[in-house]
C-alpha cells in the first residue's frame, strides 16, 4: 500500500494488484463481522442451555437473530419475502422493529444529558467555569431562538462565536488532537509493519 502510493502506475502489475488486495480485505472484513454474530449466539445459547438468570430474554435474542437472518439468506426466487429487497421479512423487521428501537435507545440519552447538566455540571474551578460558559454560549447560539436573542444584543455576536470560538479556539484544539492522533496512528502503523507491535495478535 505504501509503495503503491508513490508509484501509482495504472495498468502496471502494482496498479492491478492493489485494488485486488483491497477487495480481499473487504471480504475478510465481512467475515470478521460474522465472527461477532457467532460470538453473540454462542454466549446466549450457553446462557439459555444453562437456564442462567434472564435466560428467557436471551432466548428472545437468539430467536430474533434467526428470524431476521434465515429469510435474508434464502433465495428470492423462492419467495419475495426472502432476501433483502422490498417486501422481505428482513427489511420489514429492520424498518419496523430494529431501526425504531435503535433510534429510541439513543433518544434516551437526551434525558440523561439533561439530568447530568442539572446535577453535575458545576463551576468548581476556573477551568470548569470556562467549559461551562462556552457550553452555554454554544447551546444558545446553535438554536434559532438563542441565535435571535444573541442577535438582539449585537448583530455580530453569532458571527464572532462561529469565527473565534468554533473556528478559532475549538479549531486549534481539534487540530492539535488530529495532528497528535495521526502521528500516533502513523507510528503504530510503522511498528506493525516492522513487526515491533504484535499486541493485536495477542502477544
Amino acid at each position: 500500500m505504501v509503495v503503491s502510493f508513490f508509484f501509482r502506475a495504472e495498468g502496471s502489475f502494482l496498479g492491478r494488484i492493489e485494488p485486488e488486495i483491497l477487495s480481499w480485505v473487504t471480504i475478510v472484513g465481512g467475515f470478521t463481522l460474522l465472527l461477532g454474530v457467532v460470538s453473540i449466539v454462542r454466549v446466549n445459547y450457553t446462557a439459555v442451555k444453562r437456564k442462567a438468570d434472564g435466560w428467557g430474554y436471551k432466548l428472545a435474542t437468539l430467536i430474533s437473530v434467526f428470524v431476521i437472518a434465515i429469510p435474508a439468506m434464502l433465495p428470492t426466487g423462492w419467495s419475495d419475502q426472502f432476501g433483502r429487497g422490498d417486501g422481505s421479512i428482513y427489511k420489514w423487521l429492520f424498518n419496523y422493529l430494529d431501526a425504531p428501537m435503535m433510534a429510541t435507545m439513543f433518544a434516551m440519552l437526551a434525558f440523561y444529558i439533561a439530568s447530568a447538566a442539572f446535577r453535575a455540571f458545576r463551576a468548581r474551578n476556573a477551568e470548569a467555569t470556562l467549559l461551562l460558559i462556552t457550553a452555554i454560549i454554544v447551546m444558545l447560539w446553535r438554536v434559532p431562538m438563542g441565535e435571535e436573542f444573541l442577535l438582539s444584543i449585537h448583530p455580530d455576536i453569532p458571527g464572532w462565536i462561529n469565527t473565534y470560538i468554533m473556528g478559532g479556539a475549538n479549531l486549534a484544539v481539534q487540530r492539535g488532537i488530529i495532528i497528535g492522533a495521526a502521528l500516533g496512528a502513523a507510528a503504530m502503523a510503522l511498528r506493525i509493519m516492522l513487526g515491533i507491535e504484535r499486541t493485536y495478535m495477542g502477544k
Partner: protein
Amino acid sequence: MSLVEFLQIWIIAFFTLSLFSFLYKDNPFYKLAEHIFAGLSAGYYVGLIWESVILQQMIDPMFNNGKWWLVFPGILGVLMFSRFSKNYSWISRISLAFVMGTTAGIFLVSELHGKVLPQIQATMKSLDPSQGFAGFILALIIIVGVISTLIYFYFSKEHKGALGGVAKVGIWFIMISFGAHFGYTVMARISLLIGRVQFLIDDWGGSIVQLFS
C-alpha cells in the same frame, strides 16, 4: 390508513414506549425490547454479509467471471473462526495479520499525507498578512491553541516551568473546545429525542385520532 399500516405503527409505538419505560424504572417490557433489538441487529449483519460480501463479492465473481482466486480471501475469512478453538486459535492470526498489514500500509501514508501535513500547513498559512488585524488575531488564537494543545498531550516530559505554563494555556483552550463539544452534544441528543417524539405525535397520534374519528 390501511390495517397493515395501522398495525405497523402500533408495533413501533409499543417497542418505542417499552424502551422509554426504562426512564421510570427497569421492567420486563424494556428488557424484552432490548434483547430483541440486540438479536435483530446481530441477525441484520448476517443477511447483509451473506448477500453483499459472500454472494456479491465472492461467489458470483468466482463462478460467473472466473475469478477463482477469490477463494483465498474466503479461506482467510473462514480461518478467523478458529478463534473459537483453544488449540487452533493461532490460525486466525494469519487473517488478522493480512488485514492489519494492509490497513497499516494505508494508514502510514494517509495519516501523514492526509492529516498531519495539511493541518500543519493550514496552521502556518493562517498567518496571512492580507487578512488584516482580525485575521491576525484569529491566526494567533489558532497557532497558540494548536501548539499549547500538542504540548498538553506531550507526556514524555514533566509539565513544569515553561512547558507547564504552555500546557496550562493548552488546558484553557481544551476547556473551550470541550465546552463547545458539550453544547453540540446536547443538541445531538435532543435531536434524536425529537425524532422519536415526531413519530409518536405525527404517526402514532395520527393513528389514534383516526381510530376515534
